[in-house]
């Protein structure tokens, strides 16, 4: 009786293995393969025999090896784990050993299979629903909602006084202007960029805004780069340009901010 069962099991295992080996590439990992193998048991996944499944899987792997089919590492990891699980399930529990029992491990595997199966069914149900653009449709002629953006500017008396004080304070430092031969001020950069930015519809490297004659001398180039950068931040703050940099140290690019609509 037992032998007969064993024999039939072997046969069905082999048949399953042969059928499956052909498209082993089609499986999405060991769990997927286990799920497929479990179907040969023709029982509810909740009553599945994990021991039988482990045996099926291991014989499948053996077959694949015989046929010199290259199996991805995770199939072999699963095989090792199932071999371990099989021994745990077959041997009487060793009380000195820590860790989960074979039954616990088996129960978890059964749970994983059931959950994966449930997700597959849920996915199928989801995709079978009426879908937009296929079964039901959205409005064909849409109207843009014009975003009328009104910008109001504001300033306080303090801003005004500080602004004026700034100019006067700057005057005080005028004697030092001599030292600033290779200094390109932010105001200068701003003035320059304001004039140019109207033409910057596309992303342009910020360095292309350096004033002529400032690109070569390192000190001048440094100053012009810094002030141009600061000026571009100011312009971005004013909402006149957009800035982007794809990653650290990569070129900084700016472009004129396009009017937003809809």
């Amino acid at each position, binding site marked *: 009786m037992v032998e007969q069962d064993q024999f039939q099991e072997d046969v069905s295992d082999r048949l399953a293995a042969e059928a499956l080996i052909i498209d082993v590439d089609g499986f*999405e*990992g*060991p*769990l*997927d393969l286990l799920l497929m193998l479990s179907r040969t048991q023709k029982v509810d996944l909740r009553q599945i025999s994990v021991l039988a499944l482990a045996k099926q899987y291991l014989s499948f792997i053996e077959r694949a090896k015989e046929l010199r089919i290259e199996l991805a590492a*995770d199939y072999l990891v699963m095989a090792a784990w199932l071999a371990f699980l099989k021994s745990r399930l077959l041997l009487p529990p060793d009380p000195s050993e820590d*860790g*989960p029992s074979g039954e*616990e*491990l088996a129960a*978890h595997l059964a*749970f*994983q299979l*059931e*959950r*994966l199966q*449930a*997700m*597959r*069914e*849920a*996915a199928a*149900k*989801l*995709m079978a*629903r*009426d*879908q*937009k*653009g*296929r*079964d*039901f*449709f*959205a*409005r*064909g002629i*849409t*109207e843009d*909602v014009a975003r009328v953006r009104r910008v109001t500017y504001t300033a306080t008396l303090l801003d005004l006084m500080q602004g004026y004080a700034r100019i006067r304070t700057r005057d005080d430092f005028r004697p030092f202007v001599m030292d600033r031969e290779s200094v390109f001020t932010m105001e200068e950069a701003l003035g320059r960029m304001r004039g140019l930015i109207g033409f910057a519809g596309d992303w342009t490297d910020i360095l292309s805004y350096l004033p002529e004659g400032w690109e070569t001398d390192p000190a001048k180039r440094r100053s012009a780069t810094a002030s141009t950068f600061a000026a571009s931040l100011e312009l971005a703050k004013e909402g006149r340009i957009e800035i982007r940099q794809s990653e650290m140290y990569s070129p900084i690019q700016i472009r004129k901010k396009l009017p937003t609509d809809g």
Partner: protein
Amino acid sequence: MVEIKEESLFEAPPMAEQERMIEAILFATADPVTIKEMAGRMPHGCDPAEALVHLRKRFDGRGVNVIKVGDAWAIRTAPDLGFLMQKETVEVRKLSRAAIETLAIVAYHQPVTRAEIEEIRGVSVSRGTVDQLIEMEWIRFGRRKMTPGRPVTFVVTQEFLDHFGLENARDLPGLKELRSAGLLENRPPPGTGFEAGDTDEGDEDQTELFEDD
């Protein structure tokens, strides 16, 4: 039509008029519109939520219906008339099995981390799969999980709900059954020490998820 302004700045237009307004707003766009946005565009004092109830009833059984999508509203053609719209049918990009399963897992388990998706599917999730779903605007990043490493999570979007005609994520087919069968639990494998390593204190949802049998 109605001389409101002269009467009072705060008197709202009659309900019939408000109904017309949201009808116009919803007809004008292909995207769902929130109550808040409607209110923002309508005159002061309007109650779009109430007007919607009337409008919804009005379009009951008609060729187009007023439907709820998440916390927004949209008009969509009745599903039984899809056959008339062959010309409008957009070819939905064929999704791989991995993408469909990943989508379902995100929808049913959200918020869900990449590691949890991989645990459920038993294989690693390719970047391309996630990218594709994000690009289709069906999933997006959710808040980070309060577990070690604070991994990002994925959740489904309003566009997902809209595409599949769902009022909200709770309406997913079979959700209740799956939950009561315990299949939406995130059970860590026994003996992984996961339970011990779970330093999460504050978030009840999380601890519940990690409860071990």
